[in-house]
């Protein structure tokens, strides 16, 4: 079993051809296609038209949690075992900014990666793949029923795909 729905897999060498194919697919009403590229390409992103990634919320929440944890940890531990040094108050918020800052960065970074892993997994669509898509080709996989495959295949060929395959 292939693990993905049947459809058309096209490989593009030219970026403008791939962008045209994406626009034409959207005009035909397709939204659930997958585009592969070896590197992030702004023009492709604009053509696909995704909303801004929600990973930023993970970063913000992680960072704020880090700040809160840094202050909470230092203040509570200072109160739990009072240590009077250097004439400073038991709970000295100014030096504790360092801990709040470090934990902000640490928690923010970990939360960002968790968000990246979560959203990449949640938004992953089963799609046919070719190893050349991480090398030098742009790939487009369009899941479609057998009746529509000829139309999509024609579209890919006319826009300039180097290779078009029917994936069962």
């Amino acid at each position, binding site marked *: 079993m292939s693990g993905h729905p049947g459809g058309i897999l096209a490989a593009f060498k030219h970026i*403008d051809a791939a962008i045209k194919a994406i626009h034409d697919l959207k005009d035909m009403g397709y939204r659930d296609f997958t585009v592969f590229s070896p590197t*992030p390409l702004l023009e492709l992103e604009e053509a696909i038209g995704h909303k801004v990634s929600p990973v930023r919320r993970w970063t913000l929440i992680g960072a704020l949690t880090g700040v809160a944890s840094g202050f909470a940890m230092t203040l509570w531990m200072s109160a739990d075992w009072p240590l009077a040094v250097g004439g400073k108050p038991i709970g000295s918020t100014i030096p504790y900014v360092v801990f709040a800052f470090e934990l902000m960065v640490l928690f923010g970074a970990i939360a960002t990666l968790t968000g990246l892993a979560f959203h990449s997994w949640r*938004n992953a669509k089963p799609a046919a793949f070719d190893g050349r898509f991480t090398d030098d080709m742009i790939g487009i996989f369009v899941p479609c029923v057998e009746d529509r495959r000829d139309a999509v295949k024609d579209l890919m060929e006319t826009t300039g795909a180097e290779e078009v395959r029917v994936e069962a």
Partner: protein
Amino acid sequence: MATTAPPEQSTRPTYADVTRDVFGTLGNPSKTYYILFGFILSVLALGLIALLYQIRYGLGVAGYTPPVMWGAYITTFVFWVGIAHSGTLISAILFLFRSAWRTAVYRTAEAMTVFAVLTAGLFPLIHVGRIWYAYWLFPYPNQRMLWVNFKSPLVFDVFAVSTYLIVSTLFLIVGLIPDIAAIREKATGWRKKLYTVTALGWRGTDQQWRHYSKAYLYMAALATPLVLSVHSVVSWDFAVSIVPGWHATIFAPYFVAGAIYSGVAMVITLMVPLRKAFKMERYITVDHFENLSKLLLLTGMIVFYAYVIEYFMAWYSGNPFEQQSFWNRAFGDYWWATWTMIVCNGFLPLFLFFKKIRRSIPALFVLSLFVNLGMWFERFVIIVVSLSFEYVPYAMGHYTPSWVEFSILAGSFAWFFMWFLLFAKNFPMVSITEVKEIIPLPRKQEAHR
């Protein structure tokens, strides 16, 4: 000797060239690699034997002489933390500034950061003597019901360096994932299995790039203030105490500039042989080295300015202890260390004002070695010389590192280079994805013209 760009630099590589060339640097190490690796392992063994000897007989085998109770270990700790800094500068700060030239060099710098912090982190543990109690540095629930002193910069350091190690490692791994996916398709045998697992299922889909690009941006935004904070915190280990020569508000920016300075020097030291061995002249060009040397010149001048200001403030303060401390630095027992520092870090980099030197790779390599040497001595001067000459004449002392400290210092270099060599032969040292990003993909319209 001026090095001119080889003719192949003028031909722009394609995406397929980039993958093929970078993949070509991996696997099948040469005989030279094994000889070098064997030498590194033997130096590491020497360091380990010295460390075991110290663990067996105690810190007395180090050269500590009251009042100098921070010596070569803390010097080397600060040295390695400093080395780490330019990696994050190149990978995160220059990324935020959209500096395109960083793409070919940032992976080397970033790997250097991780291995340098990994090395630095060992030294506080070695320095405390009873290494098996090192976990006392962290706040953890215990039967004695006590916690660490959060008002101490030494505890600041535990959090700063640990955070730096974790975040820089994560940053390196995130950058590697798309590259590993690219070489996964070309690898065979056990490497194929290794890259299939470590690529974490990456296929470069639009959804993956959508989240990845943002995540990388936010990671860079978090790493940027982190890099400035870590060496500021390290500088407070000294600046908040009342030792003459330490108690100065200039310490944080002075240390950060020094850290980036030493790190850029180490990047050049590593990149020159790496570029030659991996035949990467097409990607790491003379222009890259010139940009690195400009960074070296800028940070070097900031460091030199800080040296001058330190002396000026010692004189201008009217404080006799401060004045004596700085007089002792220049003309006391350790004059040779101070002048090594001033010549290597202050004067020699001024040659970089000459374009011919900036574009000469052999000259840059030699200069980078001097800066590395000078920056170790800078830390030695700040730490040891200041401690040896404080307030009370009868409490002054002279410290000389013992063979144990020298062996552990040599072992630390071996430890660092061991990781670097292992990494260089198994993972891409030039970022495939980011180098491709600055190469325009072919267009059908152009092809038809």
